[in-house]
């Protein structure tokens, strides 16, 4: 079996699983599980084989594993569809299959497989207490489809196929966020997620169209590995001073903004926590949001077309860097004030994605890719861990009949002892997120981004990111402190217990990666340990670009900065949140006052958007378009025309036909008749009178003839 064929086959098992579950297998939870997980294992295995092949291939970037077939005849050209494994997709594939598999396995436990179905549970609502989810099979169908979408996206060799995978994931995120559609909040969240990402998608679609028009192809290798094309695109002016490449790049980046929840389209992601936790992990960590970053990484050559390291950034890159950096800081400030365990992670995800975006913006391709990988692992770990916590809390709540919100960290505390496995893995994830020096993967990747920003001479970006890193470390410590340390702050927390093995095993696997993944990308010139492990990541990923990026040499300021912010943030957080007593409040509330309220309410962005966009748009739809324009104006005109012609008809009949036309005819008849009535007295019926009259007239005639005429 050739590697190309194998690549083709990677996405298919989950799709098959999806189809089979939906069509037939959904009646049996066991079969569904088997199908979904089995399919994922298959994909995982194939993915790893392909990854291995890719790694083994020399100069993979120049000779990627690729294969394509003609797909869509577009006039004179035929759009081809195919698969491509180059370094970027290989490495993405690697973390995707791992995280997906972990999530699949975890889901078995999370949805209480094997437990009895509680009769009170309703489809579309979370099960009450430990019962199996009524829509268990459907969940696996959906995540299988999701996995299919992500895998398709990764192996795609062209933008269109990527977009297909992209959108399929969009659909799945919609379905999965709304998995518990019986909740109104979930129903709102699913729509919000879909619509917000769609804003970006729409621009992205335009970008695709523009790209195709400009280059005549959508194939990655043909565009991105072709300096002439890129050069041409960079030279072609579009508008607003942007080059064609810049314009297309921005349009595509809009897709990323939506998908990766960058400001200003970040609002959907926290709400998306309405879905079951594995979904959160899937969407936020491993796959969907990563897809956005994957896109800009993939199009890095285009985005950075016309830019060379050391030169000032192009407009497009400035925009990207600005949005990324701002998002990183902005989201982390919000995360500080959140109490929902998953929402903190959600904002943290936004923030971390901002890092990657900013990295791309400053031209740090490898750093961004590296962070993408590491982040995928530790964020998946964190989400799954939080899921485990919630699961435990729910158990506790059920056991103690203390119906508190199982996701509110203020209700937790002291879970370290109840759920040790969860605690330790969560701690690893948290440290990785904070960039705990040296041992965690997050440190290495984040450090590299900071170094790139610094080295790339972008002090503003550097400063903002550093500040964000500080906040990140702080809220991570806050989260861990509130959740695991101190004493239980509710009965539920007291009665929480550790999750099942099938849930813990993925945590362990992911925590290994959360640590180990970083070691693959230690810069060669890092003090002390540099060079002891080869900087494989940089080496490997550099092949993805035609122009291998110049390695940014090691400098101390960024390293020190990252050390300081990570340890400082963690330390402050630990000090503050180490033991919050039962019934205690968040000290931040006191310290920050009204600012905290703003942060807590996410800067009121939901309300602002509602006021600025949603309500006007709905008014526009309901009142303006439908009620006013369609019903009142257009139909009004139609009805007026109809009425007018009827009225005209009526008027013609009343004013013309009856009085004039008919009237004239009748008048002729009537006047004849009335003349007859007038003269009928002559018709006395008396013969003699007739005779007399006849004679009189004869006489007159005679006298005329005889007397007058001669």
């Amino acid at each position, binding site marked *: 079996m050739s590697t190309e064929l194998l690549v083709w086959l990677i996405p298919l098992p989950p799709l098959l699983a999806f189809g089979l579950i939906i069509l037939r297998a959904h009646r049996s939870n066991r079969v569904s599980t088997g199908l979904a997980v089995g399919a994922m294992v298959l994909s995982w295995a194939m993915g790893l084989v392909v990854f291995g092949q890719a790694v083994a291939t020399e100069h993979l970037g120049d000779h990627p594993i690729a294969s394509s077939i003609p797909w869509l005849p577009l006039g004179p050209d035929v759009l081809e569809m195919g698969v491509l494994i180059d370094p970027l997709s290989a490495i993405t594939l690697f973390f995707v299959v791992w995280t997906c598999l972990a999530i699949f396995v975890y889901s078995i436990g999370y949805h209480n497989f094997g437990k009895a179905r509680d009769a009170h549970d309703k489809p579309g609502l979370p099960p009450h207490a430990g019962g199996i989810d009524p829509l268990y099979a459907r969940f696996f169908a959906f995540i299988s489809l999701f996995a299919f979408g992500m895998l398709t996206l990764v192996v795609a060799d062209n933008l269109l196929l990527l977009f297909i995978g992209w959108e399929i994931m969009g659909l799945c995120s919609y379905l999965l966020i709304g998995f518990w559609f019986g909740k109104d909040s979930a129903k709102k969240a699913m729509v919000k997620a879909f619509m917000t990402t769609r804003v970006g998608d729409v621009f992205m679609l335009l970008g695709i169209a523009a790209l195709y028009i400009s280059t005549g192809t959508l194939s990655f290798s043909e565009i991105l590995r072709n300096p002439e094309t890129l050069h041409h695109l960079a030279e072609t002016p579009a508008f607003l001073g942007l080059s064609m490449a810049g314009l297309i790049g921005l349009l595509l980046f809009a897709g990323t903004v939506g998908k990766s929840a960058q400001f200003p389209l970040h609002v959907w992601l926290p709400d998306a926590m309405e879905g079951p936790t594995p979904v959160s992990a899937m969407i936020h960590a491993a796959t969907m949001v990563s897809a956005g970053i994957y896109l800009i990484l993939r199009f890095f050559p285009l985005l950075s077309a016309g830019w060379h390291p050391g030169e000032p950034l192009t407009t497009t890159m400035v925009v990207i860097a600005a949005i990324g950096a701002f998002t990183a800081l902005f989201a982390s400030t919000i995360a500080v004030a959140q109490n929902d365990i998953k929402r903190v992670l959600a904002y943290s995800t936004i923030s971390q994605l901002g890092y990657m975006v900013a990295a791309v913006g400053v031209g740090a391709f490898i750093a961004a890719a590296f962070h993408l990988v590491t982040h995928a692992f530790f964020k998946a770990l964190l989400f799954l861990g939080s899921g485990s916590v919630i699961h435990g809390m729910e158990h506790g709540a059920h056991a103690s009949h203390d119906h508190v919100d199982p996701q509110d960290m203020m209700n937790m505390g002291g879970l370290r002892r109840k759920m040790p496995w969860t605690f330790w893995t969560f701690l690893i994830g948290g440290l990785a997120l904070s960039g705990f020096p040296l041992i965690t993967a997050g440190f290495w990747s984040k450090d590299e981004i900071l170094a790139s920003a610094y080295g790339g001479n972008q002090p503003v970006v550097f400063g903002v990111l550093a500040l964000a890193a500080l906040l990140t470390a702080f809220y991570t410590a806050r989260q861990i402190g509130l959740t695991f340390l101190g004493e239980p702050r509710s009965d539920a927390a007291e009665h929480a217990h550790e999750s099942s093995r099938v849930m813990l095993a993925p945590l362990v696997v992911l925590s290994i990666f959360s640590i180990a993944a970083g070691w693959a990308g230690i810069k060669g010139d890092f003090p002390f340990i540099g060079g002891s492990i080869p900087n494989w990541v940089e080496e490997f990923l550099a092949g993805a670009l035609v122009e291998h990026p110049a390695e940014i040499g090691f400098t101390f300021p960024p390293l020190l900065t990252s050390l300081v912010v990570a340890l400082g943030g963690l330390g402050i957080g630990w000090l503050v949140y180490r033991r919050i007593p039962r019934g205690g409040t968040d000290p931040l509330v006191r310290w920050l006052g009204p600012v905290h309220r703003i942060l807590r309410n996410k800067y009121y962005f939901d309300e602002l958007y509602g006021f600025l966009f949603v309500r006007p748009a709905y008014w526009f739809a309901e009142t303006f378009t439908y009620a006013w324009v369609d019903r009142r104006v257009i139909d009004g005109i139609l009805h007026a025309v109809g009425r007018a012609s009827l009225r005209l008809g009526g008027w013609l009949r009343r004013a013309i036909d009856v009085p004039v036309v008919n009237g004239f005819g009748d008048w*002729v*008849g009537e006047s004849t008749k009335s003349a007859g009535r007038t003269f009928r007295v002559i018709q006395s019926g008396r013969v003699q009178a007739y005779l007399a009259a006849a004679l009189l007239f004869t006489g007159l005639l005679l006298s005329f003839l005889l007397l007058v005429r001669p």
Partner: protein
Amino acid sequence: MNFPVLSIITFTPMAAGLLLLLFPGHRHREIRWFALAAATVALGLSLWAYISYDTAAAGYQFVERVPWVPQLGISYAVGADGMSMPLVLLTGVVMFTGVLISWGIDDRPREFFAFLFILATGVFGVFVALDAFMLLFFYEIAVFPMFLLIAIWGWQVTREYAAMKLTLYLFIGSVISLVGILAMYFASGLGTFDMLALEGAGFSSAFQRTWFPFVFFGFAVLGGIFPFHNWSPDGHVAAPTAVSMFHAGVLMKLGAFAALRVGIMLLPEGAKMWAPLILGLATVNVIYGALIASVQTDFKYVIGFSSVSHMGLVMLGFATLNKEGLTGAGLQMFSHGVMTALFFAVVGMVYDRAHTREISKLGGFSKMMPLVAVAFIIGGLVSMGMPGLSGFVAEFPIFLGLWQVQPAVAIIAALGIVITAGYIMRVVGRVFYGEVPAEFEGHITPISRFDRVALVILAGLLVLIGVQPWVMAPMIATGAESVLRIVGGA
């Protein structure tokens, strides 16, 4: 042609009518069957004549010519060309179906059928006459029984008024035409009323222009041209069903046909000069009739005014003076004849059962009389020029002709189609669909088989012509060509 088919067609009804008078008045059954037999003969013969008409040869066929009053140059001359042959067939059809529809008449059926048949003779005679005097003669024969038919068997409320109005309008019209015909007779110096001879009389332009309006408008009164149309809706409404069928179906064609045959064909120069006026008036007919029809509350009046509108199209076709227009006008005469006969038959059936014609009081008749509803709908679709039916086949060439003459008129007149669609659909919706008023529940008897036959024949013809225009269009086209030869092209 040895067999004097046209004469037989013409006089069969008259003979039958006279024979009917010999029947004992109370033997209704025999009277009806005899009437039906006579109508069948007339229909059969006219169908035979229609089929044996040689389209390739064109011109007048089945010609018969017998001197009648040689001193005055009056001869009995009949013949049919492509224009008149379909109308003969139309008369046969309407007569036949009219008899079927009138099966239920219990008030002096003997006289009714006798008058109806005399009327039919007059109509046949006009269509086949080749002698202007004969034409006028038959014309009067056709008009006179109408008066009695309406006045005796008509709708009690307006029958005297309508009968008198109709008679006065038509006689005045015919008198005016008579003046014109006499003027031609004397001016030609040929001492003959033979129209074929008069065609070649070479009247001076000034003469033609002076006398054309007399002849044309005199006859066009019977064609219902604006503003002399008002006799027609009143007449339609007051007349009994079969008479309405005759009236709108055939009699109005009589006027139009005579206006063509005597007016346009004998005085082509005049026709050319006056064509714009006719165009204008006919356009008014089309739009005005349709608009008024759309506000009528009486079912029968709606149909009555729709006839005004449609006859306007015929006049428009004439006024184009080109092949398309004339062909269309000829087809429209036939199509409208059948269609409106169908309409009145339906109205009659509804009225017989509901005893009201107020549209607002009717409803839901399709449930009780589905065939009637279908027939009416077919008629309605014809009326609105729905393609695939004869109305379209007829209107289309008229508009083609109009384009060549006066595009603006084509556009304006086309609006009539939409208005027509409006009122037809309104009537269909109100009368045949919707709720059945409570008072009709259970009181509506089904239609008889005679009614069925009549409806099927009429509706079938409409569809046939629409789907296969070649059964009629080429014949009429030859008629149109012969008109054009006289008028001198366009």
